[in-house]
């Protein structure tokens, strides 16, 4: 037999017991050729192209998952940023385009369709402004659409006017979806240094440097790592890093195999594996639990930054060896509502917004799925965004911001989003106003070390 029984059983255990699965297979699709001066035509072309290109995605993913014995949790599509596609249409046409995309996503049976955003780090085009204006209603009225906006980069700096607009958009979206704990905001991400091939939502979009179509993969393996760590109670940190690295190789290989197999069946190039450890609300599928297994009482206590950096770096070392192409965010995912141990720690007051921000400076991909009081002033939301974007541009890394001001709820109450989005305590936000600073507007220059030539 080519494989030892232990190897077979370990692989099966990773899936059946330790919650190893593919978080998402995301078909990236260029839709620039759908542009048309008549918005009804653009909408029709978008629907037809998404339906045609994505027609086999759901059945092929199901077949690949069944044959390989590796479950795939979500199938998704990411398109060219919508602001580019709809630029030739009238400003008020974006909702029509959005509705068409949402119908296509529903008809295909995919979980999400991302890319309904724009790149505004250097400023806003007319179309960008129109899209942002329509955005809250679009997110409130559609089910499966996600939007992301790059508002800062290490070269272009921070577009503070854009930050203010987006903070207002977040507040409006929260208000329009207040009957569902402001869930509309869970479909909106702001980025510094956005990447073109991220398979995860809500940030995924198909960048203009990408091919006609490609298939990107995100894996979910924190439970596997937790069990490896728990099996080594006496290991020192170096030994744990090595053990995590080795298991991360196997986890990433699952993603690589699913990605390359599915890409071949769909007849599209394989894009990348995103190495990020993606937690889910399923018990045992938690990054917070890995940190607890490493020896922290809770995620968020002193030592958490060190522990999370150790974990993320070890995952990268093993993952890079395992994959022919690593891309996307490939960092630590710490979405508070989507991780049972993180939301518990936050509920106990052990994990604060300030600590979450510190973690983004080294390894975490951003302030993600963080519920804040609905009464948080827009200027404060803007301040939180600006701080996070600054961490991204100063460290030459990608960071995202996905804040959910839960209208009608205060710190200490809980927001229930459901499904993969989970549930979360509402975290207190520091008092005091940055309004005068934010309202100055303009562009904050990028850091001097962004000038690398």
């Amino acid at each position, binding site marked *: 037999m080519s494989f030892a029984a232990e190897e077979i059983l370990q692989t099966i255990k990773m899936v059946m017991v330790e919650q190893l699965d593919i978080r998402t297979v995301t078909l990236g699709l260029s839709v620039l050729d759908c542009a048309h001066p008549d918005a009804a035509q653009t909408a029709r072309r978008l629907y037809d192209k998404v339906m045609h290109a994505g027609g086999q995605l759901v059945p092929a993913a199901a077949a690949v998952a069944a044959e390989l014995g590796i479950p795939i949790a979500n199938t998704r599509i990411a398109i060219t940023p919508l602001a580019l596609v709809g630029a030739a249409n009238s400003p008020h046409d974006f909702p029509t385009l959005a509705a068409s995309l949402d119908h296509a996503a529903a008809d295909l049976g995919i979980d999400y369709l991302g890319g309904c955003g724009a790149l505004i780090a250097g400023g806003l085009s007319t179309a960008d402004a129109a899209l942002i204006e329509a955005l809250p209603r679009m997110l409130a009225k559609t089910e499966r659409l996600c939007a992301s906006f790059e508002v800062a980069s290490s070269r272009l700096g921070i577009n503070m006017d854009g930050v203010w607009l987006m903070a207002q958009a977040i507040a409006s979206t929260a208000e329009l979806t207040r009957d569902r704990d402001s869930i509309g905001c869970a479909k909106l991400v702001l980025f510094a240094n956005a990447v073109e091939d991220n398979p995860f939502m809500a940030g995924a979009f198909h960048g203009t440097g990408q091919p006609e179509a490609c298939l990107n993969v995100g894996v979910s393996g924190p439970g596997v790592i937790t069990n490896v760590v728990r099996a080594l109670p006496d290991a020192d940190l170096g030994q744990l890093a090595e053990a995590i690295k080795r298991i991360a190789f196997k986890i990433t*290989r699952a993603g690589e195999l699913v990605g390359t197999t599915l890409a071949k069946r769909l007849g599209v190039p394989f894009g990348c594996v995103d190495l990020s450890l993606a937690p889910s609300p399923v018990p045992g599928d938690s990054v917070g639990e890995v940190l607890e297994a490493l020896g922290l009482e809770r995620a968020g206590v002193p030592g958490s930054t060190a522990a999370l950096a150790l974990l993320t770096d070890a995952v990268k070392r093993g993952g890079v060896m395992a994959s022919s192409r690593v891309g996307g965010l490939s960092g630590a995912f710490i979405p508070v509502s989507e991780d049972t141990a993180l939301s518990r720690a936050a509920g106990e007051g052990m994990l604060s917004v300030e600590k979450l921000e510190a973690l983004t400076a080294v390894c975490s991909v951003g302030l993600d799925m963080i519920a804040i009081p609905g009464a948080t002033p827009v200027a404060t939301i803007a301040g939180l965004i600006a701080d996070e974007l600054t961490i991204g541009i100063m460290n030459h890394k990608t960071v995202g911001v996905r804040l959910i001001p839960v209208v009608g709820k205060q710190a200490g109450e809980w927001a229930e989003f459901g499904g993969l989005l989970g549930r979360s305590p509402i975290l207190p936000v520091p008092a005091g106003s940055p309004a005068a600073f934010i309202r100055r507007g303009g562009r904050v220059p990028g850091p001097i070390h962004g000038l690398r030539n």
Partner: protein
Amino acid sequence: MADARAVLTVLGADRVGIVAGVSGVLADLNVNIEDIRMALLGQVFTMIAMVNVGDARAPFAEIQAALTSAGQELGVQVMLQREETFQAMQRI
């Protein structure tokens, strides 16, 4: 042919007839058993077989369905998955 090979795993409480039941399904579908290993760990029955579906009489999904059904009757969990999974995850 390498990509016709799959790993069959059977796990469950030991009882008479498991091997016969599972291999009967494979024989009916013309799936060849290339290697087979069994162990009884306490009361837990474990069987791992390398099979070849290259000349099988049914598509992969149907073979899986037939095995799952047999497994339910026998009170064991039966999994069939392509060899690539193990090749990818357990080999450099």
